[in-house]
């Protein structure tokens, strides 16, 4: 009896799963040439960037753009993995493969401390930078002081709000978000003593629908200027403020296209100085003992990018002036934004 062709379908389907899986977390190596090329008399550092999400996500886009900029300047040979597995075992495998492939520097753009420590132990020659709580000899920490920019955003919020109620929503109560929301509130209170802030933790980093709901709940409680922390919360927040026609601030990247009239600006996180410093340390053999890389407002690591299409309210000129003064004071070290990371 002739075998029916469709008997083979499960096999094809299994193949499709593998291909799709490989594509989803596939290597995006656009052939920047072999390692060890000379660029302006410098050896290129073989670097791998591992991202927890797709480059359409603001968090991952910032990491991707930072590394790409270094590649364009001829500093590094870059390999990229997007949408890496989120679990420790999965991401350890990805990092270990790059370590085995002879990469000198692994940029692990998420809170991957356990995986980084594992790989650092297995491959003592490799250098890793990630978001962690502890340093190891060859594992450096990337700090993300976006709370500094959130403080400036808060000052504007304090000037814009008419209801004296502002809101902030985040994926979970982690130090990054806690510090961002606290700084936003502190900034607002600096210019407007009566401000009351509503915080919501939605329990999910990707669920934009839930993020939108959280912001809507704050709007119903009277909030008229809001901020968010996390991809899903921020995307949902942008949609909610557009519908209710109130003001808000974008998160991590320039989100102004999401709600062009409603976003006063975006809190920006720029990875280029971070990656640049790590690459320089690898090249000069000064990576170890590993250090904390922190680039705040003064060093171009974070910024508040205003959106010139914003059209909900007039930003009071004196508040804008005060904000710019404080920005200069932070940059010069004269003023330090209080860092409240929670417990």
């Amino acid at each position, binding site marked *: 009896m002739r075998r029916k062709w*469709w*008997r083979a*379908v*499960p096999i094809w*389907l*299994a193949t*499709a*799963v593998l*291909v*799709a*899986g490989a*594509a*989803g977390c596939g290597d995006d190596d656009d052939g920047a040439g072999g390692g060890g090329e000379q660029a302006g008399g410098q050896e290129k550092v073989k670097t791998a960037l591992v991202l927890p*999400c*797709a*480059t*359409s*996500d603001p968090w991952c*886009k910032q990491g*991707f*753009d930072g590394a790409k900029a270094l590649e364009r300047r001829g500093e590094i040979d870059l390999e990229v993995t*997007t*949408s890496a597995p989120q679990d420790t075992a999965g991401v350890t495998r990805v990092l270990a493969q790059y370590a085995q492939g002879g990469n000198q520097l692994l940029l692990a753009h998420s809170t991957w401390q356990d995986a980084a420590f594992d790989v650092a132990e297995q491959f003592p020659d490799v250098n890793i930078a990630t978001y962690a709580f502890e340093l190891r000899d060859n594992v450096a920490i990337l700090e993300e002081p976006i709370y500094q920019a959130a403080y400036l955003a808060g000052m504007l919020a304090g000037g814009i709000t008419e209801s004296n109620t502002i*809101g*902030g929503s985040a994926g979970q*109560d982690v130090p990054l978000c*806690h510090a961002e*929301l606290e700084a936003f509130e502190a900034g607002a209170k600096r210019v407007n003593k009566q401000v009351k*802030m*509503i*915080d*919501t*933790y*939605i*329990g*999910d980093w*990707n*669920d*934009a*629908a*839930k993020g*939108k*709901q*959280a912001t*809507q*709940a*704050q709007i*119903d*409680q009277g909030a008229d200027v809001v901020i968010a922390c996390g*991809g*899903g919360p921020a*995307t*949902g927040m942008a*949609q909610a403020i557009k*519908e209710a026609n109130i003001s808000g601030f974008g998160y991590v990247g*320039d*989100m102004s*296209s*999401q709600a062009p009239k409603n976003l006063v600006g975006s809190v920006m996180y720029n990875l280029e100085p971070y990656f640049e410093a790590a690459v320089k340390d690898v090249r000069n053999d000064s990576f170890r003992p590993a250090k904390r890389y922190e680039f705040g407002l003064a060093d171009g690591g974070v910024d508040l990018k205003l959106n010139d299409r914003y059209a909900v309210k007039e930003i009071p000129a004196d508040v804008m002036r005060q904000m710019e003064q404080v920005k200069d004071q932070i940059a010069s070290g004269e003023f330090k934004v209080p860092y409240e990371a*929670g417990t």
Partner: protein
Amino acid sequence: MDWSEIFGPDALVVLLSTSVAFAMPTALAAVGETVAERAGVLNLGLEGMLLAGALVSFLVAYYVGSVALGTVAGVAIGVVLGALMAFLSVSLRTEQIINGIAIVLVAQGITLFVFEKLFGGEEQPTIAGISDVEVPLLHDIPGVGPVVFEQNVLFYLSLALALGVSLLLTRTRFGLSVRAVGESPAAAEATAVSVARTRWLALLVCGGMAGLGGAVLVLGQLNVFEEDVSGGRGWVAIALVIFGRWNPLLVLGGAFLFGFTDALQIRVQAVSGGIASSVPTEIFGALPYVVTLAVMVAATVLAGRDAQPAALGVPFRKGVNA
């Protein structure tokens, strides 16, 4: 904390109207899943069908500029994945659990791949939303009116379809066939009801409902697509079918109850002052699951009998299954 800010008449209307709107994608998928399971097929691919419906409806709405065509495309891709599930599970009689999980993995991989290829590294694309429509006369009904009859067109369509599918299952000849092949496929086959054909149709309905759920999520609420935008709604829907004891109307009610407690916990956080509140936020986050679980246990104890279709998950072979 002032409870009237949550349960006062005005606040309650806002709370209910947003929670039914946000629960709709889950509700659609759950009612579709009820049809498939009543026919005896456990469709674990629901999350993938939602996600594929979300992406395809978004892309069509973005490039063609029509929300209506986007919705149709979302349903269509759901039906296609339903057909794939039916082909594997009914025609080839392979393991349903594996098929369902494979469909979720394929959908997660492919949607991300396509979205990255089209928009990776660029500004996130958005589409124009659709506005709410007040149904004349009906929206004047106190209480119910503002909650149910001041929503967008997609909401009315979804509600009508969910209720229609419930009627289809309980009040029509086709529904009787579906229930028969789910309880006793051999007996159904003996009375000239084709088990394969009925299960195929049930899975197409299920896929279409889940695809519509994805379209409602993206076109009716978010106006953007994101990686894993379905956020586990397909898995919640599968749990809701068990919670609703395979009764489509109870499943629909369960979906709205889950949506309500979820909206409620967010609202309670906002009213009580979030991190300033003395209650940890994790307690709020657990609330929808605790309430749903409690109701499920209560329902099972009260009903006192097993409602699960007898042939659920069992492939049918003529002359083999007794």
